[in-house]
């Protein structure tokens, strides 16, 4: 099985054969992005693999950096600025700032320049009636202008097209006629949901992603085939669910943001194997730490996703919060002369000072090296030596009265504190008791920094999974294929609306089964809806419907389930208020082959045999002696008492004084002690 995580700097390729993990890193290429993936597949031998699961930040980076193809946006006359105005929400820190502008607005960096946003004379009402017929002459005139500007794609989002797509379908025909060969996305097929701004921005992203990924996916499929790969090429979506590549390209806005969700899925899968259902997930990278949550075995999935403030996509996505603290976070001097950590990062180039690639500013990694936790000779699998002298010089160069020892100790503590704060924020936002949760610490620096969070947070434990540096890529091999359809209709739930609601679900289920064909045979359809109390503007998402036909009785149960979900989210309930459905969803899960954790037999704890001792500096007032262990040599039941360091090829785990670690049945390191 192959999992590939294409990042901005490196492409991580992971292959799992007979439970053995092989990995290679290939520099990502902007000129030939598929080439990097194929090179990784060639190195590890992709022939015979049943699946090749792929996640990429290529689309997201292109949107963030505005390296976009030239596209046009067609909407109802008078509405062409919906893309510019967004939802009108301002971030909290810009409430009183008159100079604040949306990052995607006309005064900043619009996704579609204003002259390529054209109004079309037509109008459907919210009930789907034709208020003004489509003016084809005027539409052709606008399309002629677009033809002269050489646009590569066209996004169409007409007002109320989610109720009746007639005008959008006809306009698409006209585009094909006047602009042959140009990619088109229409909102009534891309995201047929209420609220025109979100529908419009989703449709624009969709056509951009079509242009970015169409040739890429075809090249990937062809070249992997030439290497002997005959299995299924899947793309991961924003919730790390898998989609066959042809299906993904039908509505590619769903694959915009796949990487971070994969770590959450990986945590859920491992959690299931080791019996943990409540998990806080923290992926410590070079620049940031991504935090997500799994409650009762389920990741927290949301029905929209924000690329930048107010730039919203109607995609099911795993909720991930980020804080600017990671291994490469820069250490600076604050205005008061103290030590500050992040949010700036040294990135991959030049990287921390100790990498010896020209970086002169100290980072968290430099501090941990000077503490003695990192092995200067075995970093990143021994690919390069770390230069402790350069790290020391970088810390000495800081213009601060803080003593040298304290600079390093404070750097380490502040980095951990920033991460712990974000972990606590996520827990508080979800109203959970942190004492019931395990913290899954992954990313190459997760095990190095996060066990110390136990001293700040009363977590149940910290779990460092096997291969923490590759855990997100392994997540692509821990998930299923998920197909879904969604539709919007404002319907007040009650005995009179049973038929209308049932018809919506029947229509979507028939469409989904027709799309999947034989693959869906015998598989159940999961139904859910996003609803609200009548008069509200915001919905409670993913209220589940029971299996079986929708009747007056079952609808009463659904209404009760809505009030339960409302209470779980908001802490109060209003049973007397009627419930209004807004978005309806059907979903079919097709099981995919997953990474197979094979638990070893339960073993009584025994002290692990150290490989040697080392000296830890700047941890306490005086240097302290600690044992170090090789992770490869640690077997189930082995216990380690802190202070200790556990080293493996691509990662290091540091167990601070006062903590204990035990190796679990699939090789995970479970760390306790501290503030519990």
């Amino acid at each position, binding site marked *: 099985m192959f999992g590939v995580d294409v990042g901005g700097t490196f492409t991580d390729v992971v292959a799992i054969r007979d439970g053995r993990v092989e990995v290679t890193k290939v520099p990502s290429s902007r000129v030939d992005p598929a080439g990097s993936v194929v090179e990784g597949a060639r190195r590890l031998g992709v022939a015979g693999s049943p699946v090749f699961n792929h996640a990429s930040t290529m689309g997201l980076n292109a949107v963030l950096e505005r390296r976009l193809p030239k596209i046009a946006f067609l909407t109802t006359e008078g509405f062409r600025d919906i893309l*510019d105005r967004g939802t009108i929400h301002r971030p909290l820190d810009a409430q009183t700032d008159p100079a604040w*502008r949306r990052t995607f*607005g*006309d*005064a900043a960096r619009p996704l579609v*320049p*204003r*002259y390529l946003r054209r109004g079309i004379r037509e109008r459907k009402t919210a009930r789907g009636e034709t208020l003004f017929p489509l003016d084809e002459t005027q539409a052709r005139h606008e399309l002629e*202008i677009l033809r*002269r*500007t*050489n646009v590569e794609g066209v996004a169409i989002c007409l007002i109320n097209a989610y109720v009746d797509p007639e005008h959008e379908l006809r306009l698409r025909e006209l585009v094909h006629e006047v602009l042959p060969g140009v990619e088109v996305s229409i909102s009534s097929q891309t995201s047929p949901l209420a609220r025109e701004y979100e529908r419009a921005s989703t449709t624009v992203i969709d056509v951009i992603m079509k242009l970015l990924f169409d040739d890429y996916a075809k090249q990937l499929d062809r070249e992997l085939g030439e290497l002997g790969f005959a299995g299924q090429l899947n793309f991961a979506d924003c919730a790390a669910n898998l989609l066959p590549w042809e299906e993904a390209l039908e509505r590619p806005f769903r694959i915009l943001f796949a990487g971070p969700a994969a770590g959450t899925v990986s945590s859920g899968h491992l959690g299931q194997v080791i019996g943990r259902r409540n998990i806080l997930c923290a992926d410590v990278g070079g620049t940031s730490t991504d935090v997500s949550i799994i409650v009762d075995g389920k990741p927290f999935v949301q029905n929209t996703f924000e690329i930048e403030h107010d730039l919203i996509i109607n995609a099911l996505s795993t909720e991930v919060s980020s804080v600017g603290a990671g291994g490469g976070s820069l250490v600076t001097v604050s205005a008061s002369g103290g030590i500050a950590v992040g949010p700036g990062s040294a990135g991959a180039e030049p990287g921390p000072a100790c990498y010896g690639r020209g970086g002169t500013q100290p980072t968290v990694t430099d501090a941990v090296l000077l503490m003695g936790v990192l092995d200067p000779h075995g970093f990143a699998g021994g690919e390069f030596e770390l230069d402790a002298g350069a790290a020391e010089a970088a810390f000495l160069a800081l213009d601060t009265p803080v003593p040298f020892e304290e600079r390093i100790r404070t750097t380490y503590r502040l980095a951990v504190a920033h991460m712990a704060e974000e972990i606590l924020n996520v827990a508080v936002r979800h109203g959970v008791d942190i004492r019931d949760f395990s913290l899954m610490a992954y990313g190459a620096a997760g095990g190095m920094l996060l066990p110390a969070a136990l001293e700040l947070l009363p977590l149940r434990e910290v779990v460092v999974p096997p291969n923490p540096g590759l855990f997100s890529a392994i997540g692509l091999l821990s998930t299923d294929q998920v197909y879904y359809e969604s539709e919007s209709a404002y319907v007040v739930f009650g005995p009179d609306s049973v038929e209308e609601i049932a018809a919506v679900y029947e229509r979507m289920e028939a469409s989904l089964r027709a799309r999947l064909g034989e693959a869906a045979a015998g598989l159940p359809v999961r139904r859910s809806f996003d609803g609200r109390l009548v008069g509200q503007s915001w919905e409670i998402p993913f209220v589940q419907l029971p299996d079986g036909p929708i009747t007056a009785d079952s609808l009463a149960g659904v209404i009760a389930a809505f009030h339960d979900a409302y209470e779980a989210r908001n802490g109060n309930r209003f049973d007397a208020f009627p419930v209004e459905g807004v978005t309806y969803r059907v979903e079919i899960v097709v099981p995919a082959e997953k990474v197979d954790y094979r638990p070893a037999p339960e073993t009584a704890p025994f002290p692990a045999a150290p490989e040697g001792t080392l000296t830890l500096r700047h941890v306490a007032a005086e240097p302290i002696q600690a044992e170090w262990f090789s992770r490869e040599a640690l077997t189930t039941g082995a216990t380690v008492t802190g202070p200790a360091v556990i080293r493996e090829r691509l990662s290091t785990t540091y167990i601070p004084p006062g903590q204990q670690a035990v190796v679990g049945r699939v090789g995970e390191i479970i760390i306790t002690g501290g503030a519990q």
Partner: protein
Amino acid sequence: MVSDCHTFAEDSKEKPVQTFPRPSEERLYVERRAIDASCPECGGADIRAYRVLSEGGWWDAEKCQDCLASLSRVPAPALGSYVPLGTTVPAVSALASERR
């Protein structure tokens, strides 16, 4: 810029007090000055320069009249065409500067 004025003549049936003639234009338009250039986006030759009000305030723009692409767009004075008298009389603006 073409000027316009309202005289209240029809309302009051009195003789207008203004000394300039009533404008003949039905609507007020910004003058669009022709520019000798062609549009890099659509190849159009009708390029005009004029002031527009958009997100971020007033802009002096040079736009293609066929596709409306902006060939150039630079911030214009914040108050648009209105120029406070104090900034046009040297003695007054010098005095204001001294007081600041």
